């Protein structure tokens, strides 16, 4: 079964409420309607009712939220946020005129289960809005991302599938951020695909074979993960071959080998390694790379590329819905 089909089936069992703040865009409306029709999500569009109606698309079953008709809700949201975070209410009220922030706030308030944005908003805006209003997951300091790699002919991981993180967002994670990325990715793949996480935190060293501040960072990140989640299946620092090749793992890791070369999640030490890593696998192994999928927020948020097609948007909605 293909990755997207797996995620679709998962989404269809939950049919969560997914908010699309860029509801004035025709492609977004089409995708939201499709998500509803396919039982993937209960779509919520934020936009101007007149503009949405003007597209002539049957939006039956899709909730449409026009901020101009929800002034009282906006004020309630602003008051609630301002009190909980100790931040000026009037500033929040002003910010909620932006549909992106309003959508993120709907997720915070439990009126939506996830958000899909980025068609007209820059990635930075989606991340900042989500960080501020959706909030971060427990023990996670920094948003990050992951890819699901589908590697033809490879028997490892989960039948040829493996998660790579972070390959798109955090350039030079600290040890705390790296630990957060590991925890986020584990949580994400469990929610998205039902995997039991087996996390390898990689480096150019295996069990102290090299000495360098970068190696130390990964070692300390592993320690932090274990302190936060005792019993969690994580190991490192190790080189990538020790993470994914059982024979190499056996040779290089003599004691306490938690992964035995069967990692299904690779956590790269920085963005240089992560970005190069996933691209190499994608190009040289003809692997499909699904992502980058944002993670680390308290609820799922997906970022779209500005040139996303309706199919891409629907794919992002499927991922968000599956991650709920």
């Amino acid at each position, binding site marked *: 079964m293909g990755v997207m089909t797996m995620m679709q089936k998962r989404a269809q069992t939950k049919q969560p409420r997914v908010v699309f703040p860029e509801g004035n865009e025709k492609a977004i409306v089409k995708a939201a309607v499709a998500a509803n029709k396919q039982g993937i999500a209960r779509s919520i569009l934020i936009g101007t009712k007149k503009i949405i109606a003007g597209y002539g698309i049957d939006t039956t079953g899709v909730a449409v939220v026009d901020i101009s008709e929800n002034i009282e809700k906006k004020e309630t949201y602003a008051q609630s946020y301002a009190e909980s975070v*100790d*931040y*000026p209410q*009037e*500033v929040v009220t*002003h*910010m909620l005129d932006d549909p992106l922030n309003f959508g993120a706030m709907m997720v915070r308030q439990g009126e939506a289960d996830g958000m899909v944005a980025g068609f007209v908003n820059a990635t*930075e805006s989606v991340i*900042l809005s989500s*960080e*501020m209003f959706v909030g971060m997951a427990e023990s996670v300091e920094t948003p990050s991302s992951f890819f699901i790699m589908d590697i033809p002919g490879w028997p490892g991981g989960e039948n040829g599938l493996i998660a790579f993180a972070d390959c798109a967002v955090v350039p030079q994670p600290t040890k705390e951020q790296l630990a957060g990325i590991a925890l986020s990715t584990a949580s994400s793949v469990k929610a998205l695909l039902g995997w039991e996480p087996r996390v390898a935190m990689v480096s150019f060293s295996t069990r102290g074979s090299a000495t360098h501040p970068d190696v130390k960072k990964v070692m300390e990140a592993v320690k932090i993960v274990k302190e936060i989640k005792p019993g969690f299946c994580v190991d490192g620092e190790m080189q990538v071959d020790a993470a994914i090749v059982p024979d190499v793992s056996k040779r290089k890791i003599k004691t306490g080998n938690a992964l035995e070369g069967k990692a299904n999640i690779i956590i790269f030490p920085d963005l240089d390694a992560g970005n190069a890593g996933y691209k190499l696998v994608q190009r040289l192994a003809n692997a499909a790379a699904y992502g980058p999928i944002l993670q680390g927020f308290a609820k799922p948020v997906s970022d779209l590329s500005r040139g996303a097609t309706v199919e891409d948007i629907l794919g992002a909605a499927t991922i968000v819905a599956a991650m709920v």
Partner: protein
Amino acid sequence: MADQKQLEEFVLNATSKVLKRDKNTLTMETRWVEDLKIKSLQVFMINMMLENEYKVKITMARVADNKTLMDVVDMVKELLANK
């Protein structure tokens, strides 16, 4: 045109509020990164307070050059002058 002292006071108050720091520990020479270890989200939240107060538009790209609190004051003055 915003009064210089008023603007400085606003920046100090906003920074103190968002970073949850005693205002008396901040000066115009305080550096965002080296002294405050400020995060993107905190910069964003301070920007929003400035936008709301002074009715200017502040992009994250524009703030990237700010090293100190005084740089933020100068940035707002420039934006107001160009309005």
